[in-house]
């Protein structure tokens, strides 16, 4: 067995802290704009689509499908699969697909969030559903 990969600790800031606080409870938050109705990720105070400051936190299902991926065959920390996952709620997020056989992955495949520990709040990864 290889040791669990060490991931960087999210630093947080006043704008993003609610995301990391929720992450500690296993909840994946996104932002939705109450003015235009669009959801976005990563979270901003001001909507990137209509520039309204009337945005609110929303809990995502943590479910989605692989938009695209690439299996990085070598790195200083070993191989990994980087991907964009399109959440059921709309936004696509950058992530890694973990706990899987990279050779079996496909675009369009259903995946779900899985949290990986850091020295602070955990980070959202995805794994085949």
């Amino acid at each position, binding site marked *: 067995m290889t040791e669990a990969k060490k*991931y*960087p600790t*999210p*630093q*947080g800031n006043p*704008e*993003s802290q609610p995301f*990391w606080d929720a992450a500690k409870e296993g909840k994946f938050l996104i932002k939705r704009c109450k003015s235009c109705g*669009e*959801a*976005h*990720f*990563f979270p*901003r105070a001001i*909507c*990137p*689509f209509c520039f309204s400051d009337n945005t609110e936190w929303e809990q995502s299902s943590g479910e989605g499908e692989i*938009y*695209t*991926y*690439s*299996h*990085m*065959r*070598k*790195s200083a*920390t070993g191989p*990994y699969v*980087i*991907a*964009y996952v*399109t*959440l059921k709620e*709309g*936004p*696509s*997020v*950058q*992530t*890694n697909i973990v706990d899987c056989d*990279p050779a079996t992955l496909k*675009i369009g495949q259903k995946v779900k969030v899985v949290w990986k520990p*850091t020295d602070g709040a955990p*980070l959202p990864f995805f794994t085949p559903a």
Partner: protein
Amino acid sequence: MSIKGKAYIAGIYEHPTRHAPDKSTAQLHAEVAKGALEDAGLTHKDVDGYFCAGDAPGGLWPMVDYLGLKPRHIDSTETGGCSYIIALGHAAQAIALGKCSIALVTLAGKPRTGAMPPRAQGAEADFETAFGATTHNAYGMCAMRHMHDYGTTSEQLAWIKVAASHHAQYNPHAMLKDVVTVEDVLNSPMISDPLHRMDCCVVSDGGGAMIVTTPEIAKSLKKPLVRLIGHGEAMKGPRGGKDLDLTYSAGVWSGPRAFEEAGVTPQDMKYASIYDSFTITVLMQLEDIGFCKKGEGGKFVADGNLISGVGKLPFNTDGGGLCSNHPVNRGGMTKILEAVRQLRGEAHPKVQVPNCDLAIAHGTGGLLGVRHAASTAILERV
């Protein structure tokens, strides 16, 4: 208002080195500046505009002082590999407005000798750093989705490397001079799916520089006249993750802007310098700036269509980033330099395009699959 015809590229220089453990990065900047000024027939006292980007150690303050310049116009716009194509447009704007008359643009660095500093990060850092986006896998993700949506194949991507290698065999400074086949590319190790090692550009030390000036000054000098007639720049990112589409780049905006300003079309181009950080970069850019329809890039690049003397669109006749060099992991400058050589008739005779009077230099900067800029320059021999 337009910059069309208001600025000329009067001097160019590409550092012959590909490995420079015996030189400092600032020294390489000075050497390419000296080379470009000598090519133009000017001295560093003539320079009144200076442009550099993220590769210049310490940025403008130390660079201007180190080089002994006294500019009245400065610009350090940083957009990765396409910074120098953007600098060309910005220099033309400054020259058109009389803010400077002889602009120096430099690029140099040593990624092959020492570690590169980490990429600067923004508000996304906590949400992305851990996932390890690198050039290889960010471009790999673009290629993967392009293949999914349009049926593009690894064989088609390989043709881009094959064409570059056909050109590189004539460049004595090229790092990789061997002509390769589609099979060679497909048999090279997988780096980040679906990109093989030979889908990736080289890593090289080195640099390049150019002198941009007024029509009057250019005409007073001895070099063949090459002028900028159209320029575009644009940026693209996930933008909140809505309607993510990694199969196109910001080139869909920078390209048409440049062609419109120039009053010409992609089909008028006799030669194309297209940033080739990876084979997929070239394929997507050719589609995005209008050499073929979206999704038809694979067919367009196949069967040697990019090989000078063989295909319809000679590209990167110096061997490009895929075979010749990729100074500081930034390919924009060398794209301009080879386009100017083609327009001057100074390319290697084996790859020189006959009567080359219109050329494009186009590039992207940053990570195509994440956040990037694109810039397009249309150049004309007068």
